[in-house]
């Protein structure tokens, strides 16, 4: 036998085994879910729980027979609170690991770092985090809450309760800047006045001067949009300087459980709008919390983003089972029907087909002097309406762009 024909035989044998292997394993071929979250670095505190939530949901789903009979396999990388790691690992999960879907990102900076890569490789990603809103991108599903859900509820409540003079202290990057713009607009619409705004670079931990600036401006309450563990030092320092002003936030408590970490009463009169925290006292929430603690007994806190990540896995299961496919285009046809809903630990949630964002139950959490949480108000079924009303309609057109109130979708 000549050398060439031998090689041919060899190749044929190889292909044969490959074909056999894939046809034999077809029914149980796993669905691969990439998980890119920060398990170390400045954001780890708020995001390790997201990974655990995804593991919890995946275990439950696999025990109950998987997604459409296929097991769910997680491909987890630690992105180290570093935007370049997001880009690196996003390329890796899409190109090398060939995952069907990716759950990725905490900070908006990281999301905007990886989003072009998802678009470029035609991937499918879930961002399971509250954020400043405005991402109109068919490759993305956002399960976190957005400003029309968190600020349109919170700011008017605070202005009615405490007064119309507002001071914003925000982290200096896209999240803080765009959220501050939302706050400014809502304050103006409600006849209030911004008496000051300061943007704090990430990683800053000393706030003496900012505290004095706030006292000088004499606001009725302070909107704190501080991100990362370093910036959380503000509360302790403001309390020790006796600032004694009510605070409002869309990120604190619900992500970084500051009320558990700092000594009372440094977070007294902090008001947060969140779609989930572990203190929520409904049977669904208690059941979720119990399951979580059973699997991860040393979890310090089950936060908003953990719940978003947990429900996102079940949402993805429903999408795949209804589309009978893991292809993004097939799944988006199901989303376009507009009836993709589920019962989450927070209550019923639905995906809005125009923006691929999610409706939420919004809980107003108030931190007391002893750091106990009460819920003075609950808003049911708040829709992520802004993008749709502004002109983003992913069922018709996919601009893969992030819009802001000052940079809305072009009117066509």
């Amino acid at each position, binding site marked *: 036998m000549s050398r060439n024909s031998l090689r041919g035989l060899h190749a044929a044998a190889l292909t044969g085994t490959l074909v056999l292997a894939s046809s034999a394993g077809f029914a149980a071929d796993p669905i691969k879910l990439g998980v890119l979250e920060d398990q170390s670095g400045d954001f*780890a505190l708020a995001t390790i729980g997201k990974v655990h939530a995804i593991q919890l949901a995946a275990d439950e789903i696999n025990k109950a027979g998987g997604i459409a009979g296929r097991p769910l396999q997680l491909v987890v990388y630690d992105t180290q609170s570093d935007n370049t790691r997001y880009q690196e690992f996003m390329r890796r999960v899409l190109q090398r690991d060939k995952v069907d879907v990716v759950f990725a990102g905490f900070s908006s900076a990281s999301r905007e770092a990886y989003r072009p890569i998802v678009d470029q490789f035609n991937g499918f990603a879930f961002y399971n985090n509250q954020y400043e809103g405005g991402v109109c991108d068919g490759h993305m599903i956002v399960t976190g809450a957005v400003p029309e859900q968190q600020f349109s509820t919170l700011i008017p409540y605070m202005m009615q309760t405490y007064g119309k003079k507002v001071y914003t202290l925000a982290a*200096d990057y896209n999240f803080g800047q765009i959220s501050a713009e939302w706050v400014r607009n809502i304050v103006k619409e409600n006849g209030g006045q911004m008496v000051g705004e300061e943007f*704090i670079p990430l990683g800053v931990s*000393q706030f003496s001067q900012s505290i004095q600036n706030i006292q000088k401006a004499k606001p009725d309450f302070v909107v704190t949009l501080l991100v990362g563990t*370093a910036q959380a030092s503000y509360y302790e320092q403001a309390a*020790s300087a006796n600032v004694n002003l009510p605070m409002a936030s869309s990120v604190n408590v619900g992500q970084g459980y500051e009320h558990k970490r700092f000594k009372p009463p440094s977070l007294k009169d902090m008001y947060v709008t969140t779609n989930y925290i572990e203190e929520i006292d409904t049977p669904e929430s208690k059941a979720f919390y119990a399951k979580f603690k059973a699997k991860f007994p040393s979890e*310090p806190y089950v936060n908003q983003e953990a719940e978003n990540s947990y429900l996102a896995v079940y949402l993805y299961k429903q999408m795949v089972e209804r589309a009978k496919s893991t292809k993004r285009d097939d799944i988006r046809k199901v989303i376009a029907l507009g009836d993709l809903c589920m019962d989450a630990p927070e209550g019923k949630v639905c995906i809005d087909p125009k923006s691929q964002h999610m409706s939420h139950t919004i809980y107003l959490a108030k931190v007391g002097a002893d750091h106990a949480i009460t819920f003075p108000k609950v808003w049911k079924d708040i829709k992520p309406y802004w993008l749709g009303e502004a002109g983003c309609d992913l069922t018709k057109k996919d601009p893969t762009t992030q819009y802001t109130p000052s940079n809305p979708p072009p009117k066509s």
Partner: protein
Amino acid sequence: MDIATLAFSALYQFGDAFAFLVLSACGLAVIFGMMGVINLAHGEFIMCGAYVTASTVHAGLPLPLAILCGALVSALVGVLVERLVIRHLYDRPLDTIVATWGLSLIATQGTLIMIGSSMAGVGTPFGSFQVGQYSYSIYRIVLFLAALGVLGGLYALFNWTRFGVLARATIQVPHMAAALGVDTRLIYSLTFACGAGLAGLAGGLYAPTMTLVPTMGATFIMEAFVTVVIGGADVFLGTAPAGGVLAVVKSAMTSWQGQLFGQIGLLVAVIIVVRVLPKGISGFVLRERT
């Protein structure tokens, strides 16, 4: 607003920035200035001091004792690190950078894995006081006094004690000191421990005012390094005036335009000082003197 209120507020902000710069930098300055070792694990010694302080407070110790515990434990860890790692790299300064950087990564991630992503805070003591329309934290004044105390203590230690004389002799002409019977290895070890202990002290002092997380050392590192870089090799003549100059720039810029400009001002000041005085402030002062 009257002049007195304004003046006090400017003074308070200056003192606050000064304390942060000096306390973060002192330990680094001792280790770099006296030994020429660039300790990139400086932030983790600070974190160690803060963690020990917080856990001993949770265990029931009063805060001042807890802070001392934090400093002592950091110093002991410093001895260990010196014995195991730094000792073997004294004639390879660049390698100490890599080694201490590795240590810092191990310490941060090790703390995250073993202790968790955060530790409960201890709360700031002493309350507040009012001047004009502003209220201030009393503990911040304590921090300022502590910074002055540390500077005075270091001056006394290195100029008035036998250890100080031996340490300076060892640093200037190690072979001669050894020939005269000084145990130079012990002196190096103690000096490194002193630097690590000062870092721990800074961590302990700031522990009540900050988030306690494994990465907390990183928030001190930039200020510590720029203060040492523009201060130069002498601990007392360098760190104190460098802290003073940078604190004026930082507090003035922050009160004028906010935190971002405070940081920009700080870094611009550093660039200018390094350009004009390449050997740092202490190099300039010492050259003038001789």
